[in-house]
């Protein structure tokens, strides 16, 4: 009986090793999801894509029309990959507002010319303040904002062809 008591620490250690070994074989999920889903879009007022373009503010979102809010950048390679999918969503009638992170008007113009312009409006967020307020941790990320200005869905990473229907459905559901 006394001997059994002595091997308990060893058993605990073996259990710990087992759990650690199991976790090592599991794929690691490094995505940091926003905890802003279901909450109102944070208030913002940012300059447009060029210096003479109109400013883009959070107020435009609460007009009854659901929209996509696409956090992207011209220096972001996956953003090039998702450009055709954004184009497809725009073609299906989804209004897309872009927020370009740490970007330049010239670079934005060049990007749009090269890869297409699916955006209803583009804002420049030079210090990622709106990105941080959204709980977004990288580019590209796409949020579905409903007609009341509530954040309904977050898609992390580039939108693949296989994601288009799901995002369209989330947009439809936000109506």
């Amino acid at each position: 009986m006394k001997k059994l008591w002595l091997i308990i620490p060893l058993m605990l250690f073996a259990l710990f090793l087992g759990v650690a070994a199991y976790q090592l074989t599991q794929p690691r999920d490094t995505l940091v999801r926003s905890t802003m889903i279901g909450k109102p879009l944070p208030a913002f007022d940012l300059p447009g894509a060029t210096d003479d373009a109109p400013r883009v503010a959070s107020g435009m979102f609460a007009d009854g029309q659901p929209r996509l809010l696409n956090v992207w950048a011209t220096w972001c390679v996956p953003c090039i990959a998702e450009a055709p999918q954004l184009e497809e969503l725009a073609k299906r009638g989804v209004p897309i507002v872009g927020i370009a992170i740490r970007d330049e008007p010239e670079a934005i113009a060049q990007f749009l010319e090269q890869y297409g312009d699916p955006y209803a409006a583009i804002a420049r967020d030079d210090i990622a303040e709106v990105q941080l307020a959204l709980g977004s941790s990288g580019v590209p990320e796409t949020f579905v904002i409903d007609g009341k200005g509530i954040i309904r869905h977050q898609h992390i990473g580039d939108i693949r062809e296989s994601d288009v229907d799901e995002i369209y459905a989330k947009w439809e559901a936000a109506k």
Partner: protein
Amino acid sequence: MTPFPLLAAAMLSLSAPIAGPAAGQMTSSAPLANTQLADAQQEASAQALMEELRCLTCQSQSIADSNAPMAGDMRHQVRSRIAAGESPEQVRAWLVERYGDYVSYRPGLDSATWPLFALPVLFLLVAGAILFRRLGRRGE
């Protein structure tokens, strides 16, 4: 704090241009990303908080330790909010509200984390009880 902050900063600044794909996002242009606050006490509390906040793009570093542009933008948020009179805990709460507990290196006490605080106390009590019994027995 890393043991060699200067060395770490030098290594990071050397590696950053190789890691990034293009010039645009290399550094944060936020005014307070790399500029200390004039008020030394505010800067000290901002610095202490930055050591406890996770860099979201380089997840094993704090934002104080990281040269990533996003870490710079987060430092700007911390400094500007503290300069505006917010307490460090208010700034932490602002980030936790957006990113969840993961963004903070200092775990709060809740239904998921209580064993973290309770187990050491339990271990101490058990060890104390064993010691007490052994020593007590010897004294007899």
